């Protein structure tokens, strides 16, 4: 199992938006999915997850709604909104740019 890495600032927003693009999820579900898709590189605890979710909700990019799990427990499910979708697209493009630029820099230095 790979060791957890530090998240770059701003990447958690992008990560969450991307994960919610597929389906609405509750807090634990989002944390699990992040663990799963990054193969354990990023481990996100509730202390980072919830502030980020609420910030995204305040900006109107995600929306929370109470629902029920199979176990019957109630949890808040977050879903991507319209503005959230366009924000995700914007951030994806931005990320590509950053990535390309960074890769170039790092490749040149080799």
């Amino acid at each position: 199992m790979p060791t957890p890495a530090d998240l770059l600032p701003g990447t958690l927003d992008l990560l969450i938006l991307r994960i919610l693009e597929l389906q609405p999820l509750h807090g634990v579900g989002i944390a699990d999915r992040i663990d799963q898709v990054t193969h354990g590189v990023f481990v996100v605890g509730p202390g980072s997850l919830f502030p980020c979710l609420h910030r995204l909700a305040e900006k109107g990019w995600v929306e929370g709604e109470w629902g029920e799990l199979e176990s019957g427990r109630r949890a808040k499910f977050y879903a991507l909104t319209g503005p959230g979708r366009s924000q995700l697209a914007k951030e994806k493009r931005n990320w590509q740019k950053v990535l390309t630029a960074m890769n170039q820099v790092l490749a040149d230095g080799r």
Partner: protein
Amino acid sequence: MPWTTRIANTCRRWLHGERTERELDAEVQSYFAIVTERLMAGGLSREEAMRSARLELEGPEQVKEKVRQARMGFTIETAARDIRYAWRTLRGNSGFTAVAVLTLGLGIGANCAIFSLINAVMLRALPVEHPEELVLLTDPSESGVAMETTEHGIRRNLSYREFQELRLHNTVFSGLLAAQNDVSDVDVLPEGGSDSQTLRAHVQLVSGEFFHVLGVKPIIGRLFTPEEDRVPGANPVAVISYGYWQQMFAGNPSIVGTTVRVGGGVFRIVGVAPPGFKGILVGSDADFWFPITMQQQVLPGRNYLEPIDTLWLQVMGRLGPGMSLKRAEAGINVTFQQALRVWSAALPTERQRRLMREERIQLRPGNHGPSALRGEFADPLVLMMGAVGAVLLIACANIANLMLARATARQREIGIRLALGAARGRLIRQLLTESFLVAALGGTLGILLSIAGTHLLLALVSTGFDNLGLDVPRDSHVLVFTVAISLVTLLLFGLAPAIRGTRLDINRTLAANTRGTIGSRTDVRSGRLLVIAQVALSLVLVVGAALFVRSLSNLLAQALGYDRDHLLMVKLDPAAAGYKGPAAIALYERVREQLGGVPGVNSVTLSNTGLFDGDSGDHVSVEGSPVNDPEQLDSQWTEIGADYFRTLGIPLLRGREVNPSDMAQGAQVCVVNESFLHKFFAGMDAIGRHVTDMYPTTRETFEIVGVVADSKEHRPNEKRYPRFYSNIAHPIGTVKSVTYLLDTARNPATVVSAVRESLRKLDRNLTILSLRTVNQQIDRRLITQRVVADLGGFFAFVALFMAAIGLYGVMSYSMTRRTNEIGIRMALGASGRGVRRMVLGETLWMVAIGIAAGLPCAFAVARLISSRLYGLATIDPLSITAAISVVLISGVLAGYVPAYRASRIDPMLSLRHD
């Protein structure tokens, strides 16, 4: 601006704080429950699972706190963004911003200044322990010494003897205190100082319990003890105020134990009162306090302590726990009546005995302390508050109009933003942020202006008072008031335009042209309504001011019955320089001769009171008069010296006046006025008859030697009243101070220094208490009326000016909107003059509606203030007509420029433009 964001945050938390907090809690709980359940499914027990969840993750409380912080950061960020945006818009529109902020600042500043004074005079509690427990046994508005006087019914002042009785037999108060009901202006010579180091100070005599009952603690040394006012003359001690100690003794702590020479005694300073405590008389700060029993030493001359009818004290008590005002009043009156029964036995007539026994003490809440100033200024201040309130409303209407016009001008911008999906609430918030900034700037400017304004007001008022020392603190009352009115103005001028501005039909707005047709008719209509309200309000203010100005000029124009312009008054205190009895009477003529020798002085006389400075009246008996109803037998009196009527220029109708030989012999002669002759002799000859002044303790009889015309010597609105002028060389009772009246050939002010010099030559110890022309003295008596008239006039002018600006603004705006309508009219043959008349007509129509709406209010206000007006009918036609004309003229002036501009529109240009 961190405080603006803090306010914004607090508002948000109020709006939806609690629900969010509950939701957050449920959400975090649910997260931890899910994690715990999963761990339990992996084989852990519930406790182990919970512990491990907490160890692995952060605690739920930390998580919630982090969320709160994140959210707060977001709010701060948007609020800050709104403010930055608003600031940019305001700066980009600096003309609008300057006008709005300045208007608002003036309005808020005036309100704040008047309110600061109301707060200082009427609202502030004394800076003592539990002021709410204090009650007054005397009338808080009384001041000065009333000597050999009887007050019937509810008592206003108390004598020291009465206070002693109340204190001795007190069962209802946890403590009683007495204080001189004024401060005295005296010379104070610090220990080891030479004569040139004499200081002037305001001193107050107080009972020994004074500080203790108030709960005031010294910052150095000690304050008085109750034992210090038991034996007259036995306790030469003094307490100094913190302010005076700082100012005159540089706060030197070694002052305690040193001595000061005051009046006829040397006093050891035993302590310094705490900062902020300036005595109990609001408006008359004390620098030194002395024990009441030291009266003869501090204020030499008359004995105030012995007589039961020298009324000069304010008495306060502290209610014990559980004692009600009513029970205390009943209790203290039992004590008071017992004393009165004993004293009344010594009175000569049954009527006097009955009147004395019927005297009562009324308790009043004492938390604000006594204040002569309050009685004088409470009503005018409330009146002025109303006036400045109206000015602020007018200012708000102006800003609201500007905002409306701006919102209309920005409709395109707002329409585009709405079309792009901006939330309406967000836009309203942004527009409100702009208004908020304007209100905040206006409020800040207002506070600055109010500081200057308060000083100005105090300076205006203080010319009418000898010992005005009013502390005008900027305390929490004033702060809350300022913030509150700033917020109210914000709602008044900010909310409606913001809501209206964002309620748009997007398609229409975007489809419309940029010029000409934007802005619905309702915008102009609401602007016009605002202007009509402004005109109405300003009419009310102008009418009010006109009434006060007319009343004052009536008072000033009163024919007094003599020529006042050439008269100078010099008030002297012979008793303080050691002249008593026959020595004082001998001095009167010497001073008269001395002053008669000053170049530019035609003639000199003297009286006990001078003009417009206190008056006396008493029961009399008149020999040979058909009037014998005891209720009718009273007259005013003045003690005069030789040449009184010649100097003043009051016509002598019959007989002669008091002359120098009467003075020399102390002859028992007097002169009566016409009213006296009519009342007591029905026009018969009175020369040779006798008048007896009936005092409770003394009687003096005078032979009438002359009759003079009636005159007004003490109040400009004095009624004709019987008066006799007796020879001052045969005094009624004891004469305290005397006032010389000088008839000067030139302007009386030019001989002032020569008069001072000449008196110094005669006796350098002779104190000049005051030196004024009669006109200055009249001005002092009329200071309240003058200030009310001046301020009323000023505020009315400001109101009218703002209303005119409002009128101008609305008409100009409406003209730009109607450019092509007017263009068409002119193209169809309307003349420039016709257009001018049309536009001016519209303006005057609004003014007329405003006047019609304002008149009933103006009448109501006139009725409300009628008791303060002199020589005017309730509805004074001249004031009303003048006010209406002034408002109409302002309307014409305001409407002329837009009308002129409209008439210069080039029809071709304006039509092509669209």
